[in-house]
């Protein structure tokens, strides 16, 4: 059982891509970093965008086959994932928007 959304997505990626645990976690972490996101605070919708638009490039560069199919399946799994128990409430953008809009 994955502890949070990052663990869950990394686990699914490991199973579908053939990358080992370390490589799949590192690749996902790098994709999130390139998208300007923090693995522990990114939301499901943000993970979906990263998997759709950033992760394919990272997987391609690691010689993974059928990247599009893997990412499409991953997005489906993220949509169906249980709500993140960690909550992901420390969203910096949200805090600054709230401060300006209050």
């Amino acid at each position, binding site marked *: 059982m994955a502890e949070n959304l990052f663990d869950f997505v990394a686990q699914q990626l490991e199973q579908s891509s053939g990358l080992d645990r370390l490589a799949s976690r590192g690749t996902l972490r790098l994709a999130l970093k390139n998208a*300007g996101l923090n693995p522990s605070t990114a939301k499901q919708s943000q993970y979906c*965008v990263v998997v759709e638009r950033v992760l394919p490039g990272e997987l391609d560069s690691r010689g993974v086959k059928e990247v599009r199919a893997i990412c499409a399946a991953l997005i489906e799994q993220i949509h169906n994932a249980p709500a993140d128990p960690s909550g992901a409430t420390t969203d*910096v953008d949200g*805090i600054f*928007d*709230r*401060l300006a809009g*209050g």
Partner: protein
Amino acid sequence: MPGGAWIGQLIAAVVYLIVGLRLAGLASRTRERPERLLSNLFVWSGISYLLYLVPLIVPVESLWTPFNFAGRVAYIPAPIFIALFTREVFRSEARLSAWMIYATSALLVVGVGGSAIVGDFEGFTLGNPLFWLEWTGYTIPFAWAGLEALRQHRKSLRRLRLGLCDRMTCNRFLLWSLFGLVQIALSLVMLEMYADFESNNAFSAFFDGLTGALELLSIALIWLVFFPPRFYQRLISGTGAVDGAAGER
């Protein structure tokens, strides 16, 4: 401060109090820590600025030292609150960031308290090592805030490209980082002013004016972060319509 600095300080005091009270209202509704911390930062800054201004507005020489000291004491919480805010918002997971808050608090309390014990109530004496503790204590937290916001701005540009952040939010990080950098500039200009005061027993007109200008720039930045006018929102968003402060994420 015979020149323009006191005018800038007076406007800054009023604006800081308005922003601080508005954030206090927001904090009472949301019960969230970031707005409570920022509210305290601005309210204490405003109170401190007003205390510093009293001797300049009421020309009674005997008020100079007590009000200056009261202004210094009232300013102690401000850098601590901005350090707490920076930790809360940008570095909540980093253990080292807690030490930044302990260090800031210690530097300020020892700097102000120590200089009072040795009889330097005004805190203008650069030759006093305790002055440097206080100066570091109120400069480093703003530098930290500015750098963290700049780092977040760079990350938000990446999110912006993917449609994960709106332009106003992205711009807010930049403005907040500039606010931090202007505070550092103010701290540096203060050094020159205090050096002048030590040698001439008067503030330099040039640095006095520069301080006033930097205070006004600070206010403009704060205003754009917390009360962005519609024309500015349209300018940054690059659209004719403004959807409000909170963007979809």
